[in-house]
């Protein structure tokens, strides 16, 4: 069921013409329900699980979840975007957490 929106955290990127997730999605799958002020995925079936929306969300309100048909309940992978580095926190179905951190941009 990729991606899942944590509606308690999502504010639909209030004030922006386009929310960060709907800007980022390469498949044009993210949209904002104007009445509710929350983002949603218009078709999870078409999601590539590229995590572009998850990375783009400034409120960490989007979680990419592997469809149950492919992977068991439940693991999480959270990207934390720095200016020139990225940190990933991964928790597997047994509760084991692993952190990965590295540079993703050089100084230019």
């Amino acid at each position, binding site marked *: 069921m*990729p991606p899942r929106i944590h509606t308690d955290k999502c504010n639909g990127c209030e004030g922006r013409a386009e929310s960060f997730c709907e800007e980022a999605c390469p*498949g044009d799958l993210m949209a904002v329900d104007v009445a509710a002020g929350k983002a949603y995925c218009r078709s999870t079936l078409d999601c*590539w699980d590229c995590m572009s929306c998850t990375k783009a969300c400034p409120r960490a309100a989007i979680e990419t979840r592997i*469809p149950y*048909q492919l992977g068991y309940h439940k693991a999480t992978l959270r990207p934390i975007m720095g200016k020139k580095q990225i940190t990933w926190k991964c928790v*597997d179905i047994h509760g084991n957490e692993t952190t*990965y951190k590295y540079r*993703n941009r*050089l100084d230019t």
Partner: protein
Amino acid sequence: MANIPAPRATRKLPASLADVETVVVDCDLLIIGGGNAGCFVAVEAKKLDPDCKVVIMEKAEIMRSGATAAGMDAINTYIPPGKTPEDLVRWSRAQVGGGPLREDLALSNARELNEAVDDLERWGLPILRNPDGSIKYRGKWDISIHGEQLKPIMAEKAVENAEVYNRVAGTALLMDQGRCVGAMGLGVRDGKFYVFRAKATVCSTGGAGTLYKSYTADSTDCGSQIWMCPYCVGSGYAMGFRQGAELSSLEQRWVATRTKDFCGPVDTISVGYKAPIINCKGEKVMARYQHLGGDAAPRFIRANAPMEEWLQGRGPTYCDTRGMAPELAHAMMCDYLNERPSFVLFLASRGQDPVKQPIEIFGSDPYIMGGHTMGGFWVDLARMTTVPGLFAAGETAGGNPNKFVGGCAAEGKLAARGAHAYMSGLELPGLDQAQVEAEKARVFAPLLRGKDFDGVRPREMKERLQRLMDEYAGGSSQFYRTNEERLDYALTHIAMLQSQFGFLKASDLHELMQANETMDRVDVAEAVVHHLKARRETRWAGWQTRMDYPERDDTNFDCFVETRRDPATGEVTAFTRPYEQLVPGDRYTA
């Protein structure tokens, strides 16, 4: 220059064609698709002529669009000290079983390659280096990168050099007396119809995924967990093909060994971390292919090997990562996070530690990708297709396999130079209103059939096509095998689908885009089937397997298979072109 943002999807849908606004944009050079190749076209074009007005028509938003949206973990080709462009061509030739391949294109690409990769590093892409500062190779030709930001790094440079129209999906070329003079497209957020007039046009829309059903496609949430970007559906091929541009070598489909159940890269483990491919008995699979190079066997042999194990009752198959040093395993997971981050989540969802359990592998669904294998437009050295004014770069340009990220970047530069030379002295012709109106009517028709219209959803037609291709045109459920009768069956049903385009209906702009994409898929699938039919031999088992012609036939098929669609009648004809060896040496080894 500017990155023109797309608005939020409009709720106001047109009731008739008269409600659809047409936007006409004039430029010198139009780039369809701001991906890996397209971004480099923009930068090079501006370098050649700072006054050149460059426009990019981009289906998504350029910072995260196309096949590199999720990131990348390696540049698969970068010529190391002591090796030459000719050596790279010899390797590429051996990887495709001795060819045929376009050695003229391959050589020109190889000569441009390292400079393009150096550009990426100068723009901020972390390329991993040894303690002495030299570039760290993970295999013979491929280098490791931390490419999570690869796409935004390229896109930022493109935006400095071009006007980017985001969320405009290309649907057709704009033609003037047999010459391409731009392209048209659907504004998938604003509902407008875009006409870009250009002196030269580069098609860099990526390859075609989603023509075939993926074995992981279920009816709920997993329809697109494929390896190739599922939003690259072959629209570029379709646009050119419908106007008579010749397609080359589509039968050499890209099929690769990928992680099973969640299509991630495998070279990362098998090449990068030397994990051997094993079967259910623990036997090293590539040992069976020692006479063909073993672990260094051509790519299609390596792709097909695990599938052969399954067929022979020796599956499942794995990449044996057990016992890997923990710091290596950590580095491998970082590689995955850079290219296919959700694969790390998949492993966590299986509760799997690769150091303790091997990673399962299987064959992917087939893709058409001229940056990996050879399927794409027939182009000349300037990268112009057989339609004057239409150039191709990256996955859309055929005949030149094993380009990958660096090669697509290099080819973007070559296409920009070709386009630059072509457009000198050219003027834009007058706008053909009738052509614009006809295409606008075709594109918007599925939205204008009325809410009570008893029609067909784009998804229904897409899934019909995908199952047809999977079962009859050599998909993964058939272990990539097909025969003449199955291909004829596929053509019969593809013609049925084409005759039913008039039943497609869309309820919003997103679905309208999908309706147009599905028509493109069907037209490209028709070309693929003609290619598979015309090559009556088996040259690259897995990529192209004919059960009725199981042997390689050098007498008749050591050549390129081509197709052309008559723009007036829609009739597709297949023919061949000769192979020319330019780089001396044994074709089958490197």
